[in-house]
């Protein structure tokens, strides 16, 4: 039994920071506990609450899920669309579609990857509805560090492939704690050198930066190789 009095390894068990949780007897979580759940754990919790008849408790958790992403969805749409686009309405529609799909089985892969796909589609659909072409921007070349630079983008010809690649990157990033993720955002994705990262982050040495980046590169390659995709 875990601390919630629920047995592990039962059908339908979902991992949580407090061990496996099963909707045998639904236990409402505190706001602090809800914050600690990953998106897919939160969705499982909402389903469990709904099925247990705890509608208001499940709705509260649903609000956490939606509110946690709403501002960044709007920011991403602002980056992609002209300044007179109805960002609030578009963000509303994106989240209704993405969250609704997560509960009716239409989503592909994990929630975050699916949400990102819906954002991409919303931007393209907006331009098409306006009778315009979306701006053509080159994909960024992703650098795995000074010693190992991808010379071409990973081959993802299908939407499912793009979702899968994002999913793998997101999953590998999720293995790192908050400080390490910040290092990766600045050094691996942002292109800052190790000294530049150290200037911005207290308690992080150049050796730390190199180790974190190396571990990320290794994990990403392991995951991509295991998935059978093209190795960059």
């Amino acid at each position: 039994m875990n601390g919630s009095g629920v047995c592990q390894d039962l059908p339908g068990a979902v991992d949580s920071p407090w061990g496996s949780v099963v909707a045998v007897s639904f236990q409402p979580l505190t706001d602090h506990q809800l914050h600690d759940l990953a998106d897919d754990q939160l969705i499982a919790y909402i389903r469990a609450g709904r099925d247990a008849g705890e509608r208001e408790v499940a709705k509260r958790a649903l609000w956490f899920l939606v509110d946690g992403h709403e501002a960044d969805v709007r920011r991403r749409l602002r980056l992609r669309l002209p300044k007179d686009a109805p960002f609030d309405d578009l963000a509303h529609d994106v989240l209704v579609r993405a969250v609704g799909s997560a509960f009716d089985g239409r989503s592909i892969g994990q929630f975050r990857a699916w949400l990102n796909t819906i954002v991409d589609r919303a931007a393209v659909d907006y331009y098409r509805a306006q009778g315009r072409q979306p701006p053509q921007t080159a994909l960024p070349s992703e650098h795995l560090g000074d010693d190992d630079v991808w010379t071409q983008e990973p081959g993802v010809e299908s939407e499912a492939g793009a979702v899968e690649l994002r999913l793998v990157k997101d999953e590998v990033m999720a293995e790192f704690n908050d400080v390490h993720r910040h290092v990766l955002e600045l050094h691996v994705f942002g292109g800052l050198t190790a000294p530049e990262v150290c200037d911005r982050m207290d308690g992080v040495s150049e050796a730390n930066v190199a180790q974190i980046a190396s571990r990320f590169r290794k994990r990403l390659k392991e995951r991509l190789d295991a998935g059978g995709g093209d190795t960059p």
Partner: protein
Amino acid sequence: MTSIQQLLAEYISEHRAGGLADPIAFVQRAAPADRDKLTDLIDGYLSRTPRRRSDPAKRAGSPAERIVAELEPIIFGPVGWSVLLPQLRSEAKLKRSDLVARLAAELGVADRTEKVAVYYHEMEQDRLRPDGVSTRVLEGLGKLFGRSAEELRAAARGPSHPGDGLTETTWFARSVSTSDAVGSPPAAAGDESDDWDEVDELFCGG
């Protein structure tokens, strides 16, 4: 450090600190030749960053609350008249007796207001079959609440819905005499007596 990287690092710092983090403001600070690149880098960061911590004190009236309201029937099923009607009545600041009187007048059965009261009470208990309640009744209620008949119909619950916590629902459908008190035990569905009248037809005839 290049300018584009400095801007990205500043953006990430502001975003992580819970600041405004308006991406356009940062992109516009970049050299024109670098703006597409910075756009992609910020977009990539935002697509990866974890879900932000929410403040429940700001839930009421938030954009997320409006999204949840639209998702609610999709995820949880119809809210049911037992929840919606009292809520709408409260928003309209109508006592039940006033609402019933106005509804009966709207339906042209003001002389049988007590019977309408019994049926309306059953609606607020989710004990009337939704498909038995006529559109005229819902249109009449809709006028009083400022909602459409379709919206009221969509909120009705059938015999079982996810999150009900119930395995069956007993339906109330009988001819109610004016001497019946509100809250008397419901009869089985389809139990019609000889004095079936227009009010019965409005609330149970479909």
